[in-house]
């Protein structure tokens, strides 16, 4: 079994939503209505039955080293309006341009309140997707066997078996899978099972213009992700870290087949900090049930016996 998955590097995401569109197009998913949320540039809101990729936008009142516009040679963060580079000379271009030393010249116009307002700022963008957990809550909860593990290691819902009981919806610790009301069945990302069968890359990874979404064999992806974290640390992005890359980093799911590189706490991206598949904790609950119902049987016998007529 070749275990395939996604590595989503949020430092490379530019929020273009090409992945969302490619996913909708390829899978022929219906739209979710056209709704203005007022939450930054995110009008998708969350993953759902017919939204299998979702780009999260966070406007953060904190600086992220290296973030800025490469076009004008202007660096982001508090120095956004502080220094300019002479025309024709390349400025630092995002995280990749760490080795270019800026030339200091004065700001031509004092920017006053604008500068103060924009000083401490950075974007965080993350293309969220079903994590295809090594131990999947939805799969273990599914009472029909509709949710299966494929030969690619992904978690797949068979739409012709699902009877829409809704148990997987509550069992997913990431809030990924959902039931569409008109359809009655549960749906989520399939890791483009049909494309994988045809030897192709999933639609979102294919469409991603910045390699923020990387698809491949899990072992390769992990090695690449660790190299990327080292690279970012060397460039001053100390908070870069991986989320759910293996069982050691996320014991509750025993590792994700779609893992992430984050630059802030997981909650900021709406990811749970220490998720756990519900079944992992359920043995004591069954034991407790046994104790409860046995005392119930004793109670029934006691009630009957105490009131019996000789």
């Amino acid at each position, binding site marked *: 079994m070749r275990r395939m998955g996604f590595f989503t590097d949020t430092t490379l995401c530019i929020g273009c939503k090409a992945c969302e569109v490619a996913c909708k197009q390829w899978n022929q998913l219906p739209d979710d209505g056209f709704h203005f949320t007022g939450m930054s540039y995110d009008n998708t809101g969350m993953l759902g039955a017919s939204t299998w990729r979702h780009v999260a936008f966070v406007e953060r009142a904190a600086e992220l080293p290296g973030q800025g516009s490469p076009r004008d040679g202007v660096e982001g963060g508090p120095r956004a309006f502080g220094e300019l580079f002479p025309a024709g000379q390349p400025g630092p271009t995002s995280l990749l341009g760490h080795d270019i030393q800026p030339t200091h010249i004065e700001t031509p116009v004092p920017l006053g309140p604008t500068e103060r307002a924009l000083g401490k700022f950075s974007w965080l963008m993350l293309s969220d997707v079903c994590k295809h957990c090594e131990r999947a809550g939805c799969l273990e909860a599914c009472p029909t066997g509709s949710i299966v593990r494929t030969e690619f290691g992904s978690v797949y819902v068979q739409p012709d078996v699902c009877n829409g009981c809704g148990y997987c919806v509550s069992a997913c610790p990431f809030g990924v899978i959902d039931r569409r009301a008109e359809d009655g069945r549960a749906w989520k990302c399939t890791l483009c099972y049909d494309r994988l069968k045809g030897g192709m890359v999933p639609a979102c990874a294919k469409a991603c213009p910045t390699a923020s979404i990387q698809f491949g064999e899990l072992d390769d992806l992990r090695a690449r992700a660790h190299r990327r974290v080292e690279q970012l640390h060397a460039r001053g992005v100390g908070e870069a870290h991986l989320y759910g890359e293996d069982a050691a980093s996320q014991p509750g799911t025993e590792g994700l087949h779609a893992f992430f590189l984050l630059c802030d706490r997981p909650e900021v991206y*709406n990811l749970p*900090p220490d998720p756990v598949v519900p079944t992992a904790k359920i043995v004591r609950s069954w034991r407790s049930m046994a104790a409860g119902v046995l005392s119930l049987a004793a109670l029934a016998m006691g009630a009957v016996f105490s009131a019996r007529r000789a």
Partner: protein
Amino acid sequence: MDAMDPLRRETALRDGRNVDPEVGRLTGEASGQRASPRLAAAALARAEREAAPADEAEGPSYHGLPVLKEPVWRWMIPAYFYTGGLAGACGVLGAAAQLAGGRGTWPLVRRCRAIAVGGAVASAGFLIADLGRPARFLAMMRVFRPTSPMNMGTWVLATFGALSGAAALPALLPAPRPLRRAADAAGIAAGVVGLPLVGYTGVLLANTAVPVWQETRNTLPMLFAFSGAVSAGAALDLWRPRGPGGEMARRFGLVAKGGELALSWALHREAGLERVERPLRRGASGALLRGARVLLGASAVVDLVRRASPALRIASGVLGTLGTLALRFGVVAAGHASARDPHATFALQRAGRGAADLARKGEAPGPMPAPRGIDATGQESVEHGANP
């Protein structure tokens, strides 16, 4: 003329895909997903409307949106918890009366069997009605999967339904002696299978990612077991059998009410963290649970003083039934509120009660895996970008 207007026709045929059948065929993975544009934006609009207002003091969240999906179950599920518990507990009491009742308890046994089979049928009806695809309910029985309490419960309910149906058969038609013997054996077996039927629904709720349900995983099954006993006692108060059986049902129900009240407080204790326990106290779910306690307490008091008064007996039955119904609906409503609150999930896991709980051997919480620059307690360390 209007009918030919291509723009209007397209709008009428729209399913949210905008695939022109002349140009493209619907063969994608999700092409079978039924959709109507009318309902499409409802889920997001609702989540957004109910999003917790962002509060810096509560720690970070993504625009206050929930991290989990709210359970999609409708009122049929808590209603099923009631009917299933009622049926199972009646099966248990009926079997106990059959084994140890002695003279004059047959009215109780017959009544228990009737309620058991009626409750099992109603339970199956509620469960099937709540499915997104009710016609496919038999898909539940194509696998045997111990990791899924819902799958286990389906098998238990099906077995219980068959056994209690067989046990109730002699009451419906004149049965020869061997058939009555078989019905008695089925009655005992229904009592045994009734035990998991009363309790498993608590495990079913605990086996979810919903913080308040997951954190009360030891109390919920016991609470639901006693809640089932209360429903059985109350139903037999309302439909009292002749002979000593009525007094047996009263004692069964009275002790169960005490147990249910005690366990409903234990629920708060086990939930622990304020943020997780909050829906048990506040809002509609908190009100339902408080109401449940008042009704159960009142019912127990009436039970203690009622003697032979039929009016008080009926009052106790009504109060007990309403109380235990309020408890079921309250617990389910608390889960909905808990799933909507992202901070319940975050606070729980930051407190070391996510996966870190698994490593714990009953003592101090194990360390939560902490990425560099980010403290497990949720505090930003100096390395973190926000600090100077």
